[in-house]
């Protein structure tokens, strides 16, 4: 097993980042002009990093798969962004945000990284307001806040139900300015295919021009991946259609550790699955849990009637409703963290209390809020979400309670990075959802936006300099080197192989099969037996993919099916990685629930003695071989590790 150096700076947790900045190496302004950085991805992390690096003087090459940087899936985040501003005077502080995040992550995050995240959170709000992000305000003209799951203060800043959109547009503005200044070069409709390593360092990428179908080569002094998470491994998720894990898997195949892949977040408030033609699931913002109450009927007979469609939720009287979150978790009620809320919903539905025709839905009810606040206030707060719900389901949520069910939403696991956000491959950095470091086994609501922007605006632009200050990597390299030849050749060979299978099955049909296996065996409740079955079935799906895939058209020019096939190839590898990690982690923590490991009350039972570590998986040269596990032990200095308690 390799030793893993997370490069955590000396000193007490509150001083580590200050110490780091005081002693890190910097690149002087003249030299910055000579250095190139590739940033793959234009979401919150990618756009903010590209813009900030450009402002500092570096030459940035920025890539995205959509037609514009503004389309990245950060745009869809609804609820808000956390920051330890304490504008509400409700006892918030950097320490409390740090503590809530570590606790919310079920004590599997890296302490030093999380503290830094909490520390820079306040700067993010300042930055965004200065960019013109129209956060919600009070009548006095100051910023408004709301509360999110897993915390007891109001520290979430928001812009209607479109916070992700506004933050991304802010970052996109900053990025656009750097494009105008000539410091960032944008490549839209390009997809990274592989990293190019030269003398043991990441020095470039091969990217596919999705319009021409041609491979193109790009070299730089460092490569930053900001390519998001791997939720689409499950086919149905709240991720956008093009979200994929191919860049991360490419890095993994080159030897980068993949950390904690089993930590997948299942969001409790999504619109339930219907039929088998669905392409994705729609999230209803967690902010709804501020005023909505979650319930199922107390009587199984009522549940049966709801499932048969002979009874409506609004007709069930108050005393026959089971507000199970308020019942089980009096202190946090409907605002328990996402993993807890999701499991509680599954528990009720598994027992037969589901409220729709599939039996896989619970109610999210606003009748009490409408009574208390009036319909207008509820409409003002959540109107756009209610409209969206009605368009999709044809049910008016002002009159009938919403139906929700958990769905795959976010992935806490990702490429392993050290304190500097560098992977174990020199010169290869990973930021935002693409890395693993800050959310442990469960992410709190409104923290993804915080982490993406923290990494991109305030962390990476510093830490990458410590790497770029190394003069041995300063000479620019040409892309006609044999290292580039070799990688491009292997990428083309893979594509020729896929095009040459000439089977019968479409990419989506195989991806759907993968999704079903993932959801059933590697989903919300996992068992050893199920995971072993899942691994076997994923391998069968790989065989099917390898022998029966059909891609129409040719590899020249735009070919959407080919691009999806390349991604699916990596999702299959990712699926196994999630299952291996879930199998190894013989405990329940956060989003990872092993049914063998639960308390008598059905809560997650951690095993700190044996699993207080980051699981780092290393590729063994072949997708069919089992990856090898290394462990980064977690060291907690500031926080006492406890059992999570949201009951009192």
């Amino acid at each position, binding site marked *: 097993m390799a030793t893993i150096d997370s490069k955590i700076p000396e000193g007490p947790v509150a001083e580590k980042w200050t110490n780091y900045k005081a002693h890190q190496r910097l690149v002087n302004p003249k030299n910055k002009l000579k250095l190139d950085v590739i940033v793959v991805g234009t979401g919150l992390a990618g756009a903010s990093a590209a813009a900030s690096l450009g402002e500092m003087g570096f030459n940035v090459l920025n890539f995205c798969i959509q037609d514009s940087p503004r389309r990245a899936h950060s745009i869809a985040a609804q609820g808000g962004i956390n920051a330890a501003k304490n504008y509400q005077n409700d006892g918030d502080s950097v320490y409390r945000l740090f503590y809530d995040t570590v606790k919310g992550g079920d004590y599997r995050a890296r302490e030093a990284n999380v503290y830094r995240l909490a520390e820079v959170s306040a700067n993010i709000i300042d930055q965004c307001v200065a960019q013109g992000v129209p956060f919600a*305000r009070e009548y*006095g003209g100051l910023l408004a806040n709301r509360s999110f799951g897993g915390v007891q203060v109001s520290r979430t800043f928001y812009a209607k139900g479109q916070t992700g959109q506004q933050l991304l547009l802010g970052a996109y503005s900053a990025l656009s300015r750097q*494009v105008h200044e000539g410091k960032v070069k944008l490549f839209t409709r390009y997809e990274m295919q592989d990293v190019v390593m030269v003398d043991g360092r990441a020095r470039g990428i091969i990217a596919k021009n999705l319009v021409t179908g041609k491979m193109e080569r790009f070299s730089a002094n460092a490569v930053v991946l900001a390519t998001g998470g791997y939720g689409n491994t499950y086919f149905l998720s709240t991720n956008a*259609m093009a979200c994929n894990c191919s860049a991360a898997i490419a890095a993994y195949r080159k030897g980068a550790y993949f950390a904690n892949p089993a930590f997948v977040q299942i969001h409790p408030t999504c619109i339930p699955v219907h039929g088998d033609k669905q392409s994705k699931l729609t999230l209803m913002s967690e902010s709804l849990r501020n005023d909505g109450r979650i319930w199922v009927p107390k009587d199984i007979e009522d549940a049966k009637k709801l499932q048969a469609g002979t009874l409506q939720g609004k007709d069930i009287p108050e005393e026959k409703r089971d507000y199970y979150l308020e019942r089980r978790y009096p202190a946090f009620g409907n605002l328990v963290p996402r993993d807890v809320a999701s499991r509680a919903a599954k528990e009720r539905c598994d027992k037969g209390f589901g409220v729709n025709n599939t039996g896989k839905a619970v109610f999210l009810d606003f009748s009490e809020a409408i009574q208390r606040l009036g319909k207008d206030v509820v409409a003002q707060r959540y109107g756009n979400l209610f409209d969206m719900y009605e368009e999709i389901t044809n049910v008016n949520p002002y009159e009938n309670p919403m139906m929700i069910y958990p769905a795959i939403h976010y992935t806490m696991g990702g490429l392993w990075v050290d304190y500097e956000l560098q992977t174990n491959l020199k010169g290869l950095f990973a930021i935002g959802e693409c890395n693993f470091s800050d959310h442990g086994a469960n992410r709190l609501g409104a923290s993804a936006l915080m982490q993406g922007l923290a990494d991109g605006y305030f962390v990476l632009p510093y830490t990458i300099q410590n790497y770029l200050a190394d003069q041995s990597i300063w000479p620019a390299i040409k892309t006609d080197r044999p290292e580039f030849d070799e990688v491009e050749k292997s990428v083309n060979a893979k594509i020729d192989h896929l095009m040459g299978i000439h089977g019968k099955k479409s990419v989506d049909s195989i991806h759907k099969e993968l999704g079903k296996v993932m959801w059933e065996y590697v989903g919300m409740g996992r068992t050893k037996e199920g995971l072993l079955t899942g691994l076997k079935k994923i391998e069968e799906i790989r065989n099917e993919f390898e022998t029966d895939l059909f891609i129409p058209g040719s590899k020249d020019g735009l070919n959407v099916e080919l691009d999806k096939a390349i991604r699916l190839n990596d999702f299959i590898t990712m699926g196994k990685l999630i299952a291996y990690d879930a199998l190894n982690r013989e405990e329940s923590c956060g989003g990872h629930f092993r049914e063998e490991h639960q308390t008598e009350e059905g809560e997650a039972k951690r095993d700190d003695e044996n699993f207080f570590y980051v699981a780092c998986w290393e590729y063994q040269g072949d997708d069919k071989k089992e990856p090898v596990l290394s462990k980064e032990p977690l060291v907690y200095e500031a926080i006492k590790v406890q059992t999570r308690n949201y009951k009192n």
Partner: protein
Amino acid sequence: MDKNISFTLRIWRQNGPKEKGHFDEFQMKDIPGDTSFLEMLDILNEQLVEQGKEPVVFDHDCREGICGMCSLYINGHPHGPATGATTCQIYMRRFKDGDTITVEPWRSAAFPVIKDCMVDRGAFDKIMQAGGYISVRTGSAPDANNIPIPKQNADLAMDAASCIGCGCCVAACKNGSAMLFVSAKVSQLALLPQGRVEAARRAKAMVAKMDELGFGACTNTGACAAECPKSVSISNIARLNREFIKAKLKD
């Protein structure tokens, strides 16, 4: 419960920007009413792939109405029949059994077709790059509550900022004007004290870029705002005109 419907789908096919396009016609059978419009196209594409044919190309991504990627012109309306919704938010229950549904790409000189119903909206990025920002370096911002902003202005800025950059306004406009898009960004930033400093320069730069890129002139017909999936108000265009004239008068 939603019913299943069957209908004729006429959809635009075009191999490249310089190629001649045509409509392909497909009979769609028993599509559930709770299928989204894009899921209906997924079904079509699955059928085409099964027959060994190339699927219809169209842009889409988030499928929840916020990324601005989807961009289909359905039965004469950009984003189809619903108001305040993007293509991906249209559900098949809005159509009737036996209907003929015609699907085209955005049509505008500034948005050339890439393939089938996918167009190049890179011009919007270029307009943004010309001035759609507040020049603030990372790390140089004052405390967020330093400058109180009247809630009314913040809310108006938010309404303008909800533009998703889909290009629907251009597709809806008989002149192919991008005024609603440009005015939304100019308004958002002009309404905020942080954005006032560069307001004049911004309005001029963005309008000049818009003209340069081949978008048409605005003749106040209002089709843009009527079709906008985010209901961005036409009053933003009035505000842009004010900002632009003020800026020009200063010159």
